[in-house]
Structure formats: structure tokens, C-alpha cells
């Protein structure tokens, strides 16, 4: 256990040094926002066994809430962040409260449908700016003192938020509460027969996951100084599933790695298409950049068919086999 924590500290220090190694801060912050989002999602899928197909609703609603609070009310960033998280948690309470009334595949369909409803709400509501979204959200001064307009300063705020979120998830999973969640994942009827109020545990996990997903969304608004409709689409809900699946569901670092891969893919697939065009001479590859969905869909299929443990999961399995022999 202590070795694990030491490992995470080393990783955190390395992340703090990234901007000095020439990593573009916006890119690193984007990865961290998505990584936190995926970790929050993984708390449900990986550690509780609930597949939420509507997590974009929490990312999107927190992004809009924070953006609106900063822009219209002129509050300081920390208030905006708290407001965003609170909105996402409240929404999580409503959606989760409905969704846990059914289990398995129905749970996924209900969360998807509720998220779509939230999407339509944001599309039609006046304060969100419709298709354009909220633009030019001021980053403001943290606690009224620290100016966040510099990307480097913001980088450390986002890193801190990511670490807080990650630590909460780590602590949750490695607590008696987390043990009950794992028991739910493995065998729900047995958990019921042991006298656990299963619905309460599920709902609590759902709200926690929604709140942390909200934290990711709020941070994202600060990074991109905008909140847009794409954060709340079902495609985004699918993307977070893919991040978790590629990295390895039920592992701590898997979703982080998965988020990195997906963000990299979104940024670089156009270049890759160009290279394929010049190599093969087939012009069609050139427009791969605009249709990232093809690549994402393909990776999805490959992951589900052949690679269900994800990268970190496979790595852990390899280590275990080593130890056994």
C-alpha cells in the first residue's frame, strides 16, 4: 500500500514538472480534465459495476453552471467551481435516484435517456447560448488574489483539482464503503442478504461520481474559457466509456492513461490520416481527421472483442502471472 502511495507521489511530482519539459499546458490540462472525468466514471463502472451511459450530463451541466456563475454573476473561480460541482451532484441525485430503480442493461438505457433530456434542456434553455455555448468566460482571480489568466498558474490549479478528485476516489475505494461497492459489483443478491441497503450505497456512489465528473467539467470551463454543447452529448458519454475501457476498468491509473490516449488521438488522427494518404495514395484517408468517430468506433470494437482488461489491466495480469510462476 505504501509503495503504491509513493508511486503516486512520484507521478504527481512528474506532472507538476511537465510544463518545464516543454509540454503545452492547455494540452496537459485537457488530458487532466478528461482523466478526472474518466476516473469518476470508473468509480461507477469499475468499482461498483454500474454502467452509466449518461455521464456527459454531469460534465456538461457543471461546465455550464461554472461558466454561467463566472460570466453572469462575476463570482470568483472557487465559488464557480463549487457551484458547478453542487449542480452536478444534485443532478446526479435525480438521475441516479431514477436509474437505480432498474439494474443491468436498463440502468444504462435510463442514464442515456436522462442525459439526452439534459442535452435538450441545454440546447433550448436561453442562458446556455444554444448551439454556440457560453463563450469568453472570465477565469478571474482565485480567492480574489491569484490571477488565473496565465496558463501556467491555471495548470497548477487544475493539477491540484485533479489530485483532490483522484485522492477522493482512491480513499473511497479503499474504505469500508468501497468494499461494499465492490461486493455489489461481484454479487448483489449476496450483499442484500448480508443486510446492506444496496440502493443507498448505489445512490451515494452515483452522486459522488457525478460530483467528481462535475469537478472535471468545471475545470474544463476554466481551461477553455467556454462551455459548449458538445460536453453534454451522448458522444461524450461514449468517449468516457472508451477512455475507461482502453486504460482498464477497475484500475486507478487506467482511466488516466485512457484519457491521455483518447485526447492524443483526437488531436493527432488528422496527421495520421495525412501520413496514410501520402503512403498509400488513397485520398480518402486525408479526411480521417474530420471523422475521428470512425477511428474511435474501431478502437471500441477492438477493445470489446480482444482487449477487455485494458492496458493497465493487462499489465497487472501479466505481473500477477509473473509472480505466480
Amino acid at each position: 500500500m505504501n509503495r503504491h502511495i509513493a508511486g503516486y507521489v512520484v507521478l504527481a511530482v512528474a506532472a507538476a514538472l511537465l510544463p518545464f519539459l516543454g509540454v503545452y499546458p492547455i494540452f496537459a490540462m485537457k488530458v487532466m480534465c478528461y482523466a478526472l472525468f474518466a476516473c469518476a466514471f470508473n468509480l461507477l463502472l469499475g468499482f461498483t459495476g454500474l454502467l452509466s451511459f449518461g455521464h456527459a450530463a454531469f460534465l456538461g451541466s457543471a461546465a455550464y453552471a461554472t461558466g454561467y456563475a463566472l460570466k453572469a454573476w462575476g463570482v470568483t473561480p472557487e465559488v464557480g467551481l463549487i457551484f458547478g460541482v453542487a449542480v452536478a451532484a444534485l443532478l446526479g441525485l435525480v438521475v441516479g435516484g431514477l436509474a437505480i430503480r432498474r439494474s443491468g442493461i436498463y440502468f444504462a438505457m435510463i442514464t442515456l435517456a436522462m442525459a439526452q433530456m439534459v442535452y435538450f434542456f441545454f440546447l433550448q434553455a436561453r442562458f446556455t447560448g444554444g448551439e454556440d455555448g457560453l463563450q469568453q468566460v472570465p477565469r478571474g482571480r482565485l480567492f480574489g488574489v491569484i490571477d488565473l489568466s496565465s496558463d501556467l498558474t491555471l495548470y497548477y490549479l487544475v493539477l491540484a483539482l485533479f489530485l483532490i478528485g483522484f485522492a477522493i476516489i482512491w480513499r473511497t475505494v479503499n474504505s469500508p464503503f468501497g468494499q461494499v461497492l465492490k461486493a455489489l459489483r461481484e454479487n448483489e443478491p449476496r450483499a442484500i442478504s448480508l443486510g446492506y441497503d444496496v440502493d443507498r450505497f448505489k445512490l451515494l456512489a452515483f452522486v459522488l461520481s457525478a460530483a467528481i465528473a462535475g469537478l472535471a467539467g468545471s475545470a474544463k470551463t476554466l481551461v477553455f474559457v467556454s462551455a459548449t454543447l458538445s460536453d453534454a452529448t451522448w458522444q461524450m458519454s461514449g468517449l468516457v466509456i472508451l477512455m475507461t475501457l482502453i486504460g482498464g476498468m477497475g484500475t486507478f491509473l487506467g482511466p488516466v492513461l485512457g484519457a491521455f490516449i483518447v485526447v492524443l488521438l483526437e488531436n493527432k488522427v488528422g496527421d495520421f490520416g495525412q501520413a496514410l494518404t501520402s503512403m498509400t495514395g488513397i485520398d480518402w484517408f486525408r479526411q480521417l481527421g474530420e471523422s475521428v468517430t470512425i477511428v474511435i468506433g474501431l478502437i471500441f470494437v477492438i477493445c470489446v472483442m480482444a482487449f477487455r482488461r485494458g492496458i493497465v489491466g493487462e499489465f497487472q495480469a501479466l505481473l500477477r502471472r509473473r509472480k505466480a510462476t
Partner: protein
Amino acid sequence: MNVFGIPMQALFGQLLLGLVNGSFYAMLSLGLAVIFGLLNVINFAHGALYMMGAFVAWMGLAYLGLNYWVMLILAPLVVGLFGIVIERLLLRHLYRLDHLYGLLLTFGLTLLIEGLFRSFYGVSGQPFQTPDLLRGATNLGFMILPIYRAWVVVASLIVCFGTWFVIERTPLGALLRAATENPRLVEAFGVNVPRMIMLTYGFGVALAAFAGVLAAPVLQVSPLMGSNLIIVVFAVVVIGGMGSIMGAILTGLGLGVIEGLTKVFWPEASNTVVFVIMAIVLLLRPAGLFGKEK
């Protein structure tokens, strides 16, 4: 003539449009229910395959010069075959795993299929000519009835009730229902259950494609026409519960009509009314209107 301050024309027009949408919901949720019954897979790709049905029909008309009636039969066959290939190559290997992998696989396929069509045809819709025979409208006195829309409702009702009849009233359907209840026992009686599963998936998919061809002249043929529909259909499935064939048909039609009426009285809510109803049903009757509590 006005009803609740709404012109009768507009009211019946939206009612009919609601019925048209309801028939699509009915056909798609019926296919989802049949597939789920036997495969235990929620076919996310159902919307994409519905879109493929419309596109295959459009291609037949545009590239091969075939007519609507030929494509109405041919497109479901082509897409059904495509579904069978998917089942054989991919889905078959996931039956032993958690149900959610089937959902994730078909979700990935949806992105793949939609992305491919988008990369060739863009996001704007392709116009689709209404066949000559069904063009125009008749005046019923209280409303103008566009013939094609009436045809969509009639055709889908025939297909839906035909499916219901085959499943609930014929020996073949009895076998299918038995395999849904207990596949191993049916296999022990010498029935080739894997082939049955394969054909069932093909049939469910063909049903979606048939709906797609019917939809082509009403809506524009666009790569994105399926993905927005499938989420509403999921809500329909949750509301109806997947236990009964008739339940799926009635829920689909009913929700289409409710959506149409909402468009008349409160247009802003028409996108979300089905989801609101889903939430209410979950609160009052979690198993769905026709579902059985497990």
C-alpha cells in the same frame, strides 16, 4: 373548426405525424425486444442499421435505378445479411460475458457505421422521392391526409402485427419463445439454437432497415438520422418493458402520438416529453408498463 384553440387541421396533422413517428418507435423497439429476448444484447446499432436501411434504399434508387418497391424488400434483406455477418463475426463471442459488453460492442459499431457514412455523404440529408403511387393527398373533410404518411402507418402496423402473430401464434414462434425462456433445454430437443439466434438478430435488424426505408421519403436520408432516434427508442423500451411483443408495439405507437400532441400544445417540450414520461413510469412502475417484475 378549433379544438382547445388549436385549428383542427394542425391538430390532426400532428396526430398523424405522431403516428408516423410512433410506427418507427414501434418497429425499432419491437426489434430490440426480440433481439434482447434471445441474445440478451441491447442492440445500440439499431439506429445505425435503420439509417443504413434508408441509405441502401437511396443507393438502389440513385445508383442502380431500382424503384421504391424493390428497395422496400431488398434493403432490409441486405441490411439483415449485414446483421448476420456482425452476429457471426463479433456478437457471438460475447454471449458468455456480462450483457454490457454487447451494448458496448454495438455502440462502437454505431460510431463506426455512422462515421463511415458521414465521411462519404457528409451530414446534410439526401432527398428521397416519394414513389408515384403514394404521392399527393386526399381530403377527408376534417383534414388533408398525405397518402404516403398513411401508407407508413398501415405498412408498419401490418409488419408489427405480422411479427406478433408469428411469435405468439405459430409453432415457429413457440420455439422462439421457448428458446428465450430456456435455450439449453430447447437445444437438447435438437433445435439448432445458435442458428436461430443468428436469424433472429438478422430479422430484428431487417425490421429496423424496413423502418428506415419507410422513413426515407418522410425524413431526409442522413447519416445522423438513426442516433437521435435510438435514444428515444431506448426510453420507449424502458417505458414499455421488454417482456411483451404487443407491449412494445402499443407503447411505441402511443408515445409517438403523445409526442405529436405535445408538439401542438407545447412545442418546446416535444423533444423531452418521452424522457419525462420515462421518469414518471420509473417512479410509479419500475418494471415498465408491460414488463414483468423479476
